[in-house]
Structure formats: structure tokens, C-alpha cells
């Protein structure tokens, strides 16, 4: 059994009077693709932002690699690549220049730029300005940035959002390659069940700030008895909660 790489215990978060996360607990074992599944506004992005220390924790515990992010921010972020919501890319610069900016911050070797461009299949577009990139290319470049320090953990918030079917397929294959060939633990949030179902080895269903299911895909399939497919099960879980 793998040791947990991320552990969230009794985490709650409020924006003013609104409860965004309500006492959630999640465990992400090392070496898995962990799907964080839920409709828009479920609390996925807030959870991932709390994981990265972008939001100050109000209650509960958040541990990455067994350490509290609020006390060990720098060493933990060195081991974590991320993509939160829209890709953070400087559109007036080329792909290589964007990577150079982040390479300087991560202080990794220059050869990593070529390596990550190769991994996300953007070698030929390295000298092209990012504003001329398609959304799929931008998402892949954002993942290349996340891969620069060769981190064991990737946190990707809706990486398939807005992509066309081909872009979604490319993204799915890229995530599977990162997991299989580069031994990354990947946490990927999505509101698209078919996407998560095809790549995740473990998943959590989150809705209105509560975790409604956490387990492996086979465990979810066990619950599936009596449902035509996973999508109807997913809807059933959500509707029951409402």
C-alpha cells in the first residue's frame, strides 16, 4: 500500500457567511491519479488552493508529503507542480521565455526547458508567442511549467476545461503518460465524470463543500449496481445529497 502524499483532515472553509468546504477529509496515496470530481462551485478549486497555500487555512489540517503546508511552504512547493484554473502564461512572450521565467524561480537546469517541451509535445512551438497558441497548447504549456522542477506531485485544476474533443484526448494521454512513465502522483479536478473515469485510479466526489464519496474506481463501480452507467450514479449521489 502506498503512503499518502496528500492528507486533508476535517478541513472547513468559509467565504464570509458562505460555507465553501464543510469538514472534508481526503487522502491521496502516492503514485495514483486522483480525480477530484464535482459540479461547478462544489469546492474543488478552494480545496486545491488550500493545498497550495494560496488561501490561509481556517480550520482542519492540510499535509503534503507528511508536512503542514502553512509551516513548510517553500520545501513543499518545490516538490509540487500546479495548474490552477486558467493557465498562468505571459501571452506576449514565447513558450521558451515563459519556461525560462519559471525555470529561474525553480532554479532548475536549462536543459529542463527542452525536456518538458518534449514531454508535452511542444518542441516545435517553443519560439512561438503564447498568444498565438490554441487553448489546448496553452494547457499543455502550463503543464510543462508544472513539470519543470520534476516534482513528484502535480495538482491540476480542470486541465481539460474548454478543450475540444481532440484537446481532451491529448490531455488525457499526457496525464496517463506522466503517471505511467514519469511516476507522478497527479491530483486532477474536473466536473466531467467521463474524463475522470478514464484516467483516475482513485477519486473523490465533492458537492456543496462535502465529500460524498472517496475511494477507488472499483469501489465506485460496486456502488454502480442498479445504475445504467457511472454518470447516472454520479447524478444519483449528488441528487441524494440535495
Amino acid at each position, binding site marked *: 500500500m502506498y503512503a499518502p502524499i496528500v492528507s486533508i483532515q476535517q478541513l472547513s472553509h468559509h467565504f464570509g457567511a458562505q460555507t465553501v468546504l464543510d469538514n472534508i477529509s481526503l487522502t491521496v496515496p502516492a503514485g495514483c491519479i486522483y480525480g477530484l470530481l464535482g459540479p461547478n462551485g462544489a469546492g474543488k478549486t478552494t480545496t486545491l*488552493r488550500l493545498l497550495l497555500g494560496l488561501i490561509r487555512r481556517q480550520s482542519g489540517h492540510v499535509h503534503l508529503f507528511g508536512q503542514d503546508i502553512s509551516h513548510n511552504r517553500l520545501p513543499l512547493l518545490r516538490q509540487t507542480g500546479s495548474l490552477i484554473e486558467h493557465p*498562468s502564461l505571459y501571452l506576449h512572450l514565447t513558450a521558451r521565455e515563459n519556461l525560462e521565467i519559471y525555470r*529561474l524561480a525553480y532554479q532548475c537546469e536549462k536543459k529542463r526547458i527542452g525536456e518538458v517541451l518534449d514531454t508535452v509535445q511542444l518542441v516545435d512551438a517553443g519560439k512561438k508567442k503564447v498568444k498565438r497558441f490554441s487553448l489546448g497548447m496553452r494547457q499543455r504549456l502550463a503543464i510543462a511549467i508544472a513539470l519543470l522542477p520534476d516534482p513528484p506531485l502535480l495538482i491540476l485544476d480542470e486541465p481539460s476545461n474548454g478543450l475540444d474533443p481532440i484537446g481532451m484526448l491529448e490531455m488525457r494521454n499526457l496525464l496517463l503518460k506522466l503517471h505511467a512513465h514519469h511516476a507522478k502522483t497527479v491530483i486532477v479536478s474536473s466536473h466531467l465524470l467521463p474524463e475522470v473515469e478514464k484516467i483516475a485510479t482513485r477519486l473523490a466526489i465533492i458537492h456543496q463543500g462535502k465529500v460524498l464519496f472517496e475511494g477507488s474506481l472499483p469501489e465506485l463501480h460496486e456502488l454502480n449496481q442498479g445504475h445504467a452507467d457511472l454518470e447516472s450514479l454520479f447524478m444519483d449521489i449528488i441528487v441524494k445529497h440535495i
Partner: protein
Amino acid sequence: MNLTFLYNTKAELLKTRRTSIAWLTVLAAAFMPAINCVILLNRPDIFGSKLTVVPWTVFLHMCWKNTAAILLPLYVILLNNAIAQIEFRNHGWKQVYALPRRYADIFFSKFLVVVVFLFLFMILSNVFVLASGYIAGWLNPVYLFSTHAVPVGNILWLSGRIGLGVLGVLAIQYWLSIRFSNYIIPLATGIGLLVAGLVLMDWDKIIYFPYVYSIFLFFSDAPDRAGTLMPLVTYAVIAFMIFLAIGFAEVYHRREKG
């Protein structure tokens, strides 16, 4: 200053490549010298006699007076806005804060880039003053710039103290620009405070208003302003330190970053 900070400052500088910031700096620095060159060439009957004894010093004051009053504070307002907007426009802040960088490193490396551009503006302003003087003298021999030595000491002293005077504005505008994603807020606040300072220049409490320090420091060597230099420099440096500290504290304690 450690190596990490220098690497990150280099990264921040790289973000300004192919933006309008370099052009803004060059054009703003060239603006007053170019206008004054045209004025000299159009009115040699007036300025020929005025620029006979110490042509460089008079021309230097002609150029720096309006720069210190309006152009320099306005440039600082626009510069801070342009640099902060690189992050806002590209959804960059959240990724910046998700990097293994200290909050002080993030705040001060970007601020150092602003200071570098301000320094560049000051140097270019003086270069354009000299270029304009030589061009005016070349096109109209009544102007004797080429036969007089360039007063390097005067240039450094004048632009140095005006540069010190704008430091308070620099810190205030940097804070506002990284605080608000809507660029109108720091822009309107900065322009509003600059205009208010110019309107209220005769107010007895204006000495506490950082937006007028650069023009006051321009005049600080005038006979009727004797003794104002040190208080103005002191207040400018205090304003700079206070607002830089407020800006950093606000960023450091912000509950949601990016």
C-alpha cells in the same frame, strides 16, 4: 541579497520584454527635452539671450521643471500600473504565489524592476536633454551649447534630488497597483492625488503630501527656498519607507493570494 532573489528579479525583468514599458520609458524621457528643443528653435529671439552665459544649466532647468512637476510622477503611476498588469492580465499572480518563493522575494523583486526602469528614465531624461541642446545648437548657432562644458555635477545633483522626491509616490503607486486588479483604481487615485497636490501647492500642510516632493525638491536650491532640502528629502524617504512597509505587510497578511 541572495542568489535566489537575483534570479527572480531577472525573471521579473524578463516578463517586461516586448511590453510597452520600454517604449513608455523612452518616450516619457524624451517628451520634455523634445518640446523644449522645438521651443528653442521657434523662439531664438527670446531664448538666444537667456541661454548665453550658462546655456546648459538654464536648459536643464527648463526641461526638469515640468518633468519634476508632472511627467515624472505620471510616469511612475503608469509604470507601476503597467508592471502589475502583466500579472493581472495573464492570471499570473496565483502561479507566482504557488512557486517556492518567499513573499518578500515576490514583493521586492518586482519592486526592484520598477526601480530599474525609474533609474533608466532618469538617465535617459538627461541624455535627451543633452541631445536636444546639441541639436538646437547645431540647427541654430545662436545657442552655444557646444562651446560650453556639460555641467555633469549639476545634472547629477538636480536629477538625483528629484528622483529622491518621487520615491514616496513610487511606493504608494506600487502598493495600489499590485493591490487592485482593476487598473483604473491605482491610475485614477494616482492622477487624482497628483492633481490635488498641484492645486494645493500653497497649502501650509502640503509638506506632508508626497506627490509634490519632486517639484519642491526641484525648487529647493532657489534662494527663497533655503533650508527646505533636508526636510523634503527626509519626508520623501520616510513616505517611501512607510508605504513600502504597508504594501508588503498588506501582501504578506492577505488571506487569499493570487
